[in-house]
């Protein structure tokens, strides 16, 4: 530990004021603070400060994402191996999944951190740890076959346009990871949706593996549950996540664990998550009731909406991003609820998009300041004035 400190101190001399690398001080500081929480004492009141800092806050989200990442790789590998006609073992599947996913992760972190670094150096800011979450979330929302240059383009858009142009962490309106994904989704729809992007085989020909959502969209009426079942998508398969899809999003079961963990440590707001679930169930039930012979594809058990596609992942990790979500309790309920409602509306009524959660969250990101203002106005109206 002492050696490490000395080595860092020695390295630090090059980044001091007046030295050659002075401009790159944010980079040095980012590295140093990974190892050491700085020993600054308080200057102003209050004399004492909580042990919680933003680094720990964000690291807990990463901890919650570890199971998703591992399972996502195993699932991706398993589906690829099955498509190739090989009986998958755990190790083999993990290896194949890692082969597909790790390059995406490395590109996402590498390119994103480069942008973060550039902005930090130019602005003289510190590098914020929020990116560590964005850089992991983003590849988890991508299909395993996406080309790496698209990962780079997406994360660049997400970091620069989604966050830095607004002034960096804390000032962004939209969730950067979802902004990045939306950019790819609308720019390169062929690589992001359809039936051929979900299976990462080594063969040259694309292998078809429809997601439950695209099946549901294609099937008609009472045939939806049957179509799902015929394709091997039983409730358990979808719930546990053993289905094709974006790398990290498939398992609702793991999302429940993560959501409970994040709410228990107080990093995510349970109001957003519960609100979102209620929204999906309410709108899902309404849509199912309104299904008619003219629109038979609307008939889906509302609970299925919770476990198909990326809803569970989105509501657990994306919607609860504190920066782009509202900060007041009532607004959080409304925000979550409308994410759920909009997710189902997009899924049911927009034939072009099988998945709605990304759009729903981005849309509600835009409305979150308004929800906040409404609640603040209500609360200040109830106060005894004091001027």
């Amino acid at each position, binding site marked *: 530990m002492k050696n490490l400190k000395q080595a860092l101190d020695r390295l630090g001399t090059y980044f001091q004021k007046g030295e050659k690398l002075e401009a790159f001080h944010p980079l040095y500081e980012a590295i140093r603070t990974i190892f050491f*929480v700085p020993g600054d004492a308080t200057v102003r009141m209050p*004399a004492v400060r909580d042990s919680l800092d933003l680094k720990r806050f964000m690291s807990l989200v990463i901890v919650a994402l570890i199971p998703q990442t591992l399972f996502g790789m195993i699932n991706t590998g398993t589906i690829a191996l099955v498509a190739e006609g090989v009986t998958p073992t755990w190790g083999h599947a993990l290896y194949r999944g890692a082969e597909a996913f790790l390059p995406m992760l490395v590109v996402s972190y590498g390119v994103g951190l480069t942008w973060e670094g550039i902005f930090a150096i130019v602005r003289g800011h510190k590098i914020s740890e929020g990116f560590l979450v964005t850089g992991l979330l983003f590849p988890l929302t991508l299909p395993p076959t996406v080309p790496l240059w698209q990962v780079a383009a997406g994360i660049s858009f997400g970091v620069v346009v989604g966050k830095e142009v607004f002034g960096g962490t804390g000032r962004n309106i939209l969730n950067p990871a979802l902004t990045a994904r939306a950019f790819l989704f609308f720019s390169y729809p062929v690589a992001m949706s359809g039936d051929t992007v979900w299976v990462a085989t080594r063969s040259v020909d694309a292998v078809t593996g429809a997601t439950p959502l695209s099946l549901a969209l294609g099937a008609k009426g009472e045939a939806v549950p049957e179509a799902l079942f015929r394709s091997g998508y039983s409730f358990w398969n979808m719930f546990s996540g053993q289905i094709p899809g974006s790398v990290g999003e498939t398992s609702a079961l793991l999302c429940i664990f993560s959501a409970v963990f994040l709410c228990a440590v107080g990093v995510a707001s349970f109001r957003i998550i519960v609100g979102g679930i209620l929204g999906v169930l309410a709108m899902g039930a309404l849509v199912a009731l309104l299904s008619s012979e003219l629109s038979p594809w609307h008939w889906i058990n509302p609970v299925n909406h919770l476990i198909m596609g990326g809803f569970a992942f989105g509501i657990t990790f994306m919607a609860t991003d504190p920066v782009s979500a509202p900060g007041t309790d009532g607004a959080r309920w409304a925000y979550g609820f409308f994410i759920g409602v909009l997710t189902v509306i997009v899924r049911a009524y927009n034939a072009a998009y099988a998945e709605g959660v990304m759009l729903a969250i981005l849309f509600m990101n835009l409305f979150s300041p308004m929800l906040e203002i409404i609640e603040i106005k209500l609360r200040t109206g109830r106060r005894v004035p004091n001027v």
Partner: protein
Amino acid sequence: MMRFSESLDSMMKTLTVKNGFSLNLSGQVAESIKEAPVPATVALMPGWIPHVKPRLLVKEGDAIKGGAPLFEDKRNPVVSYPSPGAGVVERITFGPRRRIDEVVIKLDEEERWERFEPISPHGIASVAPDTLRLMLLKGGAWPLLRELPFRDHPDVSSRPAHIIVTLGWAGGHLARPSLALQGEEEAFLNGLAILKRFSSSVHVIAPSDVGDLPKPISQAITTRIRGNYPAGDPGHYLYCIRKEASENRSWYIEAQDLVALARFVTEGCFYPKRVYAVGGNASTVCGHVLSRLGAPVSTLEPLGARRRQVGGSPFSGLFLPATGYMNFFDKGLTLLPVGDEEDLFGFLRGGYNRPSQSRTFLSVFNKGPLELDCGMHGEARPCINCSRCAQVCPVAILPQYTMKCMVAGEVEEALAHGLLDCIECGLCAYVCPSKIELLDILKTAKAQYRKERDG
């Protein structure tokens, strides 16, 4: 978030407060009392008294009587602060921007005190409020009263809606009333009679565990307050009881100051005795110390290893210099480790021993006392709108938005949010994971608003 309940004793109410926050900390102040050695010097620290613009009335080398005015407030020169002892002005030290840090008085062997015409305890009920007002102003006892919401001394012509006498509050690091008010029953009751001359609504509030109080005092308590820090802070209590805007301008006074005020009125001579609660995990005393107003910190707690001194609660107290003196209003002294060591992988540890309001450390399972220090425990970051500050705010301000209003210069909006209700408890800044100086921003905003309003 609060509930009133009437107890069997129909005169007394109990107020239960749900939010707020307390830590189980080591270095709690024990229920013991000892006498401090007689100090050679005492001091007044004008720079530590909020809002005042001091104009010194003495210079170095002057002989001064105890209780004689030491400096007056430029904003209204009628208000002066008294000398805490009799002797010679030994030195006057200045801080940055000519702030007057300390006026140190070397005490005479035999102290001589400024004398005023006393009012007999029986005469209080019939004396005119203006006579009392004048006497308190002349004798320097007026600033013992404090006015909400700014916590300044009251405006000379102010008519308070309520006067709140506080016997201390949870985590407030005031001396236990059972020790501090020993033998002061009569003065306390006289004090209440004096306050009644200024307002018909006098509240005496106390935390739910005050220890064994003398009966006359415990009978005078109107409300007992149950809850975590800062439940029972006078500003917080006012926030709980007020019904309309006119009540915002109220006074408060701490029990020991009330005793001093009453003794000044009935004896005609400034009363310097104070009992201090000395604690904190860098303290070796951890008990009560009987001393006097403006006593040197070193007589309360022997100088020791590197540590920091906070006057009062660690959440809201001001740092005192190591060689410093107790501030005019302080009834407590908290000594804490400096906490400026780098922390290897600090953010990845389990943290079974790390005090935190959040549930992000294993310390949620640790019921034992934890160690505080004065470290920042992280770097400053932009606000991420996590709302931890709003969760702990005892007066339901939304500190993160109020802070943004102030940064954007939207004073009116900040006021609508309840800026002036802020009781400066410091919990918002304590919990902030982005280490934003919320308390400092809100306090400065309040003071700034006041300055602009009153010119």
